[in-house]
């Protein structure tokens, strides 16, 4: 028997104490943490939960540069239990160094984690080849981190959604937010194509759409959207640690055995409207295949069976914005600047604390405020070159081999 009471759809127009706009990984995690704290929460999602970049990414959970790193590391090993649904999290990462200069890069990256009390092992060519049998035999080595890991993004976003519902939170899919109702410096309602939803507090975690939505409240959130892509192969026998990357690629071997890897040029896109078209792939997927074969020459015969693309947003410094605004004062703006999945257990908790107490007690979020961009030139995207550039056919058509 299905216990339908657990899954009753939200009644249209029924608001909540906290409304989270955006059913991506960051918004879902925030909503789940709020529901854990017994708060009445509603997620408004224009499509299906975790549908866009949140469900399509490298699945990495290893971000020593972030102020949320310690919390990311503390939470991931517990997430299956906390959520009650599998995320496919596995600990450890191997970063391959094909050349000496890559080894230096790996060690620099690991040093950031060591500074925060974590450890790693340096791998020589022999130990690397034992752990990663398909790796380039000439690779100088790599590092095996005793921190970090990886999980399945698609399964994880659904786990957040189900766990949220299990704790009484609600999700309203296929609902597009159009405007906000403001009164006395507070947002008191969200207007959607499915009617009005009242709220006492609002979390804006709408990925690339965050800027458009914030602008409805007169708030300027400087982000630029770009399309990025990945490829997936048929399954291979499992390696000891699936979280192996390097050679210009990020990604992992999934628990099923597929190699899922991305990297390379992104394509900046004009500001997105309310709807996001399905992102297409480009011939860059051949360059991904090339690098994956260079990283894993013994997998040259393995077949690529799909690719996908996602649209992610970046702030001008590439760092998140997690900020409880001054006006409207009951709004938290959240963008993880293209690095959201792995940090989501921690970012969701931080956002929940911003909502309930105005600050986080485990991370200093002041460095992630919106005010740091106050002096940004209005045409910053053009100055950075973070804009859509159409190819000039007359100057230099596609090169002919």
């Amino acid at each position, binding site marked *: 028997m299905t216990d339908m009471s657990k*899954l*009753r759809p939200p009644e249209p127009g029924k608001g909540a104490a906290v409304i989270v706009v955006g059913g991506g990984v960051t918004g879902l995690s925030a909503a789940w943490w709020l529901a854990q704290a017994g708060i009445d929460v509603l997620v408004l999602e224009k499509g*299906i939960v975790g549908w866009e970049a949140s*469900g399509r990414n490298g699945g990495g959970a290893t971000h020593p*540069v*972030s*102020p949320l790193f310690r919390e990311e590391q503390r939470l991931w090993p517990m997430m299956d239990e906390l959520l*009650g*649904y*599998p995320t*496919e999290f596995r600990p450890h990462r191997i970063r391959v160094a094909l050349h000496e200069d890559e080894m230096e890069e790996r060690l620099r*990256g690991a040093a950031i984690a060591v*500074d925060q009390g974590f450890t790693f092992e340096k791998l020589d060519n022999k130990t690397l080849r034992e752990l990663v049998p398909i790796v380039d035999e000439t690779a100088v080595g790599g590092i095996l981190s005793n921190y970090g890991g990886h999980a399945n993004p*698609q399964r994880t976003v659904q786990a957040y959604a189900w766990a949220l519902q299990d704790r009484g939170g609600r*999700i309203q*899919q*296929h609902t597009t937010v159009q405007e906000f109702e403001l009164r006395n410096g507070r947002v008191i309602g969200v207007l959607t194509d499915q009617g009005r939803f009242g709220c006492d507090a609002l979390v804006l975690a709408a990925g690339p759409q965050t800027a458009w939505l914030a602008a409805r409240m007169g708030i300027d959130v400087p982000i630029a959207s*770009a399309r990025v892509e990945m490829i997936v192969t048929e399954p291979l026998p499992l390696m000891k640690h699936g979280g192996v990357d390097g050679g210009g690629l*990020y990604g992992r071997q999934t*628990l099923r055995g597929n190699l899922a890897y991305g990297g390379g*040029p*992104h*394509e*900046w*896109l004009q500001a997105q409207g309310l709807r996001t*078209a*399905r*992102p*297409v792939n*480009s011939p860059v997927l*051949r*360059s991904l*295949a*090339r690098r994956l*074969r260079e990283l894993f020459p013994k997998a*040259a*015969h393995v*077949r690529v069976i*799909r690719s*996908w*693309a996602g*649209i992610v947003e970046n702030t001008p*410094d*590439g760092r998140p914005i997690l900020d409880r605004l001054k006006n409207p004062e009951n709004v938290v703006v959240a963008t993880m600047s293209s*690095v959201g999945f792995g940090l989501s257990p921690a970012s969701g908790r931080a956002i929940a604390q911003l909502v309930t107490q105005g600050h986080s007690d485990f991370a200093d979020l002041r*460095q992630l405020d919106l005010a740091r*961009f106050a*002096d*940004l030139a209005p045409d*910053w995207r053009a*100055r950075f*070159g973070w804009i*859509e*550039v159409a*190819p000039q056919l007359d100057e230099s*058509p*596609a*090169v*002919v*081999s």
Partner: protein
Amino acid sequence: MSVVLDPTSMAGKQFVTRPHTQLVVVGAGPAGLAAALEAARLGLETMLVDENPISAALMGMDVPFHFGGRMDGSVQNSARAVELLLEARPALAEAFEAGIDMQLGVSAWGAFGNGPTASFAAQPILGLANEESSWLQTFDHLIVAAGARDLPIACAGWEKPGVMGARGFHALLRDYRAFNGRRLVILGAGIVGLKTAVAAREAGLEVAAIVDVDDAPRGPAPLLARLKGDGIAIHSGHCVRAIRGNTEVDGVSLVPVNATQDAAAAIELPCDTVVLAVDVAPNIELLDVLGCATQYRAELGGYVPTLDREGRTSQRHVFAIGDCAGIADQNLADPTRAAAQGRRAARAIAAEHGAAAADEPPLATVAPSDREGSRQRWLAAQLAMAGDDLVICQCEEVRLRDLIGVRPPRYLAHSEAAFAHLNLHALAVDGPVNQDQIKRLTRAGMGACQGRRCRDQVHLLLAARSNVSPGDIPLASYRAPVRPIPLGILADQDETPNMRDNWTTWFGIDAQWQPHWEKPEPTQTRPPGRLRRLVEK
């Protein structure tokens, strides 16, 4: 003011492509051949791409058809395969003589162009590959004549070698002369099944029986009369209890539709091959990858491109003709209709290039046939007989119970208690059932055959179990490469220096990868640093 380019982005990147051509036709069946010949006659630079002969390795993966392991060793000999293909399709020789750039044994695995989420392409690009390498081809116009693919319906034992699709059977029999079975049971008495039986008879094979769940065969009366005249048994109102055999098929047990699962088999048929010939489906992979609008048309065999009368898709430079534009019994019976569609598309394109050409006389309208209903009745009968343990997705071993229960895949330990309240109905409460979502959760359709063997069944099943019409379930998306291609072959060997020198793992924003306690440079007017080895252009 000069435009600043982000060196790590697509801006200014180029892809090495083969010399441009005005028109590429994908698929050298009756529609594609007619289109290419007409286009060449009207003076268009025309390339005709066809993936046949297909490599033995792909056949072994049931790509692009459900070959069911029923090919003999001769498919390893690619030179012989080309000769046989030319014999089987005499119009190919005509196309060579007409000066068409013939690309046989070449698959069109991807298509790229600009749209709402991309603007990198100076021209539309097709991804092509053979057994040695892959490359890119630019074009002005594209005609997709990718034909039909198999539409298997699962039953107990359908994973055994010797169970194959009708398209796989025809390809092995006609194009490759490599079919190694002797005695067939054919499932489906519509036109696809009856044509399969006729082809088998003409090749001197034994047809043990034709089976259909319906009480009366749907196929054309003349074909039916001919087969009955040959003494072929037709078991109406029956479905498969199980396909028998240890290492491969050695027989089929039939029971009347609606028999209980423990009922004794009514009919035992020894055979070495079972052809799943209930229907075929339009091959719209490339069209969907290109973003051409599609719509669900039950009478045309599922999701088909939205076309104008000349065969033009919503992407004005892309046309669809033949079976990939929609399956119709009349077209399956009469290939000259597909050829007429091909000529008409070629003339429309030639007109855009300034060539005057007479319009093709209009085709008689297709009479609707009951494609969806027969598929649904077959699936319902087979699922009822096989029960919840039936494997629907062979690659990922997804059983019927896993699909209905939205369970995680078999490799993943999970608590049944946590999932006890979850199923398709529960998911439907939160919004319409979406096949891509089910795919992500259960992995049905995510395997190495790229969902060819299960995507249509899963689609029908989701509709049936959530009480909606199949047209209410959005098309599960297709992604490039639409053929499984080895890394070593897909790999770009001709990258430009700009691509190589500016490659970054994830954007080129230094501050993103500096520890948070290092304050980034001010960001008023320029990005906060770039990776040092980048080449500014």
